[in-house]
């Protein structure tokens, strides 16, 4: 029972958000199983776990692939709350999906209450350049405004698929290390204070 977490690979929890049909499931399945599904099957929620090597360190990634158009907000919040990093996906062939990213960003910030939550803005379906509706500039401007990175991917050709997941995991890892450091730096009595604070609540 008292096994130290050191022996366990770190676990990073990633959540895919975005409108329906932008390729959240396609990106997830491409990353997980190197497969691309042509037919569109609406997702309710799916979760996957994979062991990977992140810069030489063995880690586990938990991916939650969510539904796009949510009428069940309560369920969504249960997931968002436990997510440690978010891939916010839109399709470069559909302006509406790009506009919707604003909402998703807000929902996440509302639940996580943290401006610096690991987060990537992802423009998917970049293999369909001829049908592009959202310019690279537009998207990266929004990303800059949010203080996040913008990456274009194709779940079909696998372009940048690994990159978005790995970049996000690096952000999550860095975030966790930062949290650890502030914790250790302040020492034990800090914890005691925290304890009391919780009691007060």
């Amino acid at each position, binding site marked *: 029972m008292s*096994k130290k977490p050191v022996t366990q690979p770190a*676990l990073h929890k990633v959540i895919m958000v975005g409108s329906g049909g932008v390729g959240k499931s396609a990106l997830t399945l491409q990353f997980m199983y190197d497969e691309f599904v042509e037919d569109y099957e609406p997702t309710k929620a799916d*979760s*996957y776990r994979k062991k990977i090597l992140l810069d030489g360190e063995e880690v586990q990634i938990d991916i939650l692939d969510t539904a796009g158009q949510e009428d069940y907000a309560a369920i969504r919040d249960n997931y968002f709350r436990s997510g440690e990093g978010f891939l916010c996906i839109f399709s470069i062939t559909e302006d509406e999906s790009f506009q919707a990213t604003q909402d998703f960003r807000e929902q996440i910030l509302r639940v996580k209450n943290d401006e610096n939550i690991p987060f990537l803005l992802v423009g998917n379906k970049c293999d369909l350049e001829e049908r592009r509706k959202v310019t690279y500039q537009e998207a990266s401007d929004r990303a800059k405004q949010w203080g996040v990175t913008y990456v274009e991917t194709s779940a079909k050709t696998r372009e940048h698929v690994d990159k978005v997941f790995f970049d996000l995991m690096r952000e999550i890892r860095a975030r966790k290390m930062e949290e650890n450091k502030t914790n250790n730096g302040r020492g034990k009595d800090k914890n005691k204070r*925290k304890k009391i604070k*919780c*009691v007060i609540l």
Partner: protein
Amino acid sequence: MDFESPDVMKDFPGLYASEIHKTKSNDPEYSDDAEKVTKKDILIGKRKDKKDKKDKERGYAALEGESSAEESYEVRSPSKSKKSKSFKFPTKSREKREKSREKDKEVTEKKKDKDKRTDKKIEKDKEKCKLEKKEKRIKSEDWCDIGEVLPIFGVSLKLAIEHGRCHDGIDLPVPVRACIEYIEDYGLSFENVYKVSGPKSKVLHLKKLYNQREHVNLLDYDVPTVTSLLKMFLRDLPEPVFTSDLLIRFEEAGAILNVAVREKHLKILVGNLPESNRLLLSWIIVHLYNVTLNERCNKMNVQNIALCLSSTLQTSQRLLTSLLFHCPALFPNTVLEHYVYPLTSTSQLPDDPEVMEQELLKQESLLAQIHSEMNVGFISKQREELLWEVQRIITQLKRKLKTAHKDREMLFEKIDEQHVEETVENEAERSTTPTISSEAEVQSECVEETRVIETDATAEAPVSDAKLSDSSSCEKSSLKEVEPPEVPVSVPENKLLNNALALLQIKNTFLNNLKESF
């Protein structure tokens, strides 16, 4: 001590029937504080207690949170909560004080050796504190005990089923299923089963574990404790299982002298019960009936059982006796099915598509319950872990089912193709000279599928995927007369089926290996 004698009731007034009054009075030993505490109390007066519990939970979560599924299963095991309990009989209010002191000490001790490891988590918890403060008021219930807000014991049957749902579609509260299962397996030949009571402290402890959704292993307890637990559940129901509306009519029916008329009336009344009441009643009566069938071993005949359980069921001995007497007629279809909990991520997924479908339903039921518990504010690291885990199992099951269905489709296609091929061969043999026939056989072996598919269109055979074409076939004309389903199952077809099945199995093991390697 002569248990058979009804006098025993006078000597031990608290033993059976009068326990009901005890519960209703304020005897602190039997009324556990859970029920007496309002939500407000929980949020204000009992804050400290809650916090300790919370921290304990968090402490575990901190250890297990980032660990393998194997250990997260351990979180659900009963061991931890059991260890922290002592089974004493202290007196009245002192008990409470002692308990809380004990608990505090324990928690501090636990905290000490966990502090180092939980630093990070505590930081997070703190953030969460802040966060949750901002959230809806209801969210602060996170700091109280689910067993006190959404208990299984002491609430209406409907709520008990909701809070302690069995996920296999038989809607009885988990402790009821578990107790009956246990007694059916280990208690039927136990002497004076249901007459002998278990130690109250243990019974109350079990009740608490169930209320808090802890994993309970009844095998760690003895028969009297388990029968007492089931009795406690029934006694704690605010309304008799017969419902207040129908109880009098049940009593009247049970008193009818004419056996046939009595049975008829009872049958009608049972049919009039709400579904969940009928289900619970059927299980209880069928189970008690099974107990009386073993009267020779356990010394509990119908009269004894009726004596011991009538007050528990808030009814008369006469009605209970009647129900037991008519049990086979009243509940002919009740099967006391064992409840198998939803799988955890450490267990193998089933391979049989039908079992997979059943498991999927279970997991989805479990998922819905986790969501609904979280939605009323019971949010903890542990529950979040469980949420992701169950979601993961559902995803895996769905994927596996999809492949299984695909495989089956392919298998059927192959079989259908084989049907046509067989037909073709038969026809060839019939309509040509032996030499040509053998030639045809050889040919059919090398061309295999392609030729068959070509014939398909003409033959109206159930093969659908005619993508390939090959013009080598020469039997087209004769095919129309042959009805493929009439061809007897021949050796090569069986062989093909076996091969396909073997292939499927290999695929499944491969999938399992893959799954394990994740």
